């Protein structure tokens, strides 16, 4: 288990629901905390009766959704200004924005299970000016709720052996990330092929 996960779990034991909220919120915004591994550990704490399942689930889902909303709205308001300030190539963003906009709902939902790709998607969705309700918010709530409940139930089920499963969990997240990136590249490849065929 990584030192960061143990440090986060120590804070969770010390400050309980406040720590869960702060850590999960930060991970939702952009801070690369290993929140998934931490939630499996909290599932094990729940199995010892140290936390209430419903209170942890409510706190974590609320924190994750609020973190995502904060990042999305901040980028939607100030993102384009920052992109212009940094002189980032707009062509690249235009292509990505087009794909994010066309499949916004499924993309937001599936990336809730893809670790650090989730916050990146929030930023891209903000830049693409995706509709907040229902296109961003509904899949965000559904995805976060599903992810958090799966992790807590799994941690609860395996109890003190949860650490042994953190490797397999991060590998599955890696495969999901690769799958999402491959899907976007495949779509990009398809559109380029069509463009070349038309020419």
């Amino acid at each position, binding site marked *: 288990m990584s030192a960061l996960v143990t440090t986060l779990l120590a804070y969770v034991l*010390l400050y309980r629901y406040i720590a869960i909220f702060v850590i999960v919120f930060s991970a939702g915004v952009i801070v690369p905390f290993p929140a998934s591994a931490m939630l499996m550990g909290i599932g094990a704490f729940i*199995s010892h*009766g140290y936390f209430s399942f419903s209170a942890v689930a409510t706190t974590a889902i609320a924190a994750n959704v609020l973190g995502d909303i904060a990042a999305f709205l901040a980028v939607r308001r100030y993102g384009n200004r920052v992109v212009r300030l940094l002189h980032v190539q707009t062509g690249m963003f235009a292509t990505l924005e087009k794909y994010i906009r066309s499949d916004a709902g499924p993309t937001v939902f599936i990336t809730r299970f893809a670790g650090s790709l989730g916050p990146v998607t929030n930023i891209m969705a903000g830049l693409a000016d995706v509709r907040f309700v229902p296109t961003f918010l509904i899949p965000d709530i559904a995805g976060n709720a599903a992810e958090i409940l799966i992790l807590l139930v799994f941690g*609860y089920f395996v109890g003190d*052996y949860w650490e042994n499963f953190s490797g397999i969990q991060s590998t599955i997240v890696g495969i999901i990330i690769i799958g999402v990136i491959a899907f976007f590249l495949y779509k990009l490849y398809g559109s380029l092929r069509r463009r070349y065929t038309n020419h």
Partner: protein
Amino acid sequence: MKRNILLIALGVLGVITIVLAVLLVREYQALNRAGLTNPGRYRMHLSHVHAPLTVNDIGVIQSWMTFDYVNRIFALPADQLKTALKITDARYPHLRLGTYTSDVKDAVKSYLTTPK
């Protein structure tokens, strides 16, 4: 040109996916060797959910845990470890085990094996 770059990128992703799939199989084999893929093990854990841990579970105790958590999972009296280890820190039991870890293990073992 762009198409070729995309094809190469997709190829690289394919290779990474294969590597991750191999890792996944190896992780599963490691779990299998440790006997952690047997659902029976968890059935036993689930039948004891919320029940205090026993002397066989001392290995669960780790330095990042707090005294409060250890007291709870082993159902120890609130001041048992404080007295046994002569802890004067006012933050007890909301305190990490840290350097006390091995002493805590001994104290918990001693408490659980002493006939009440």
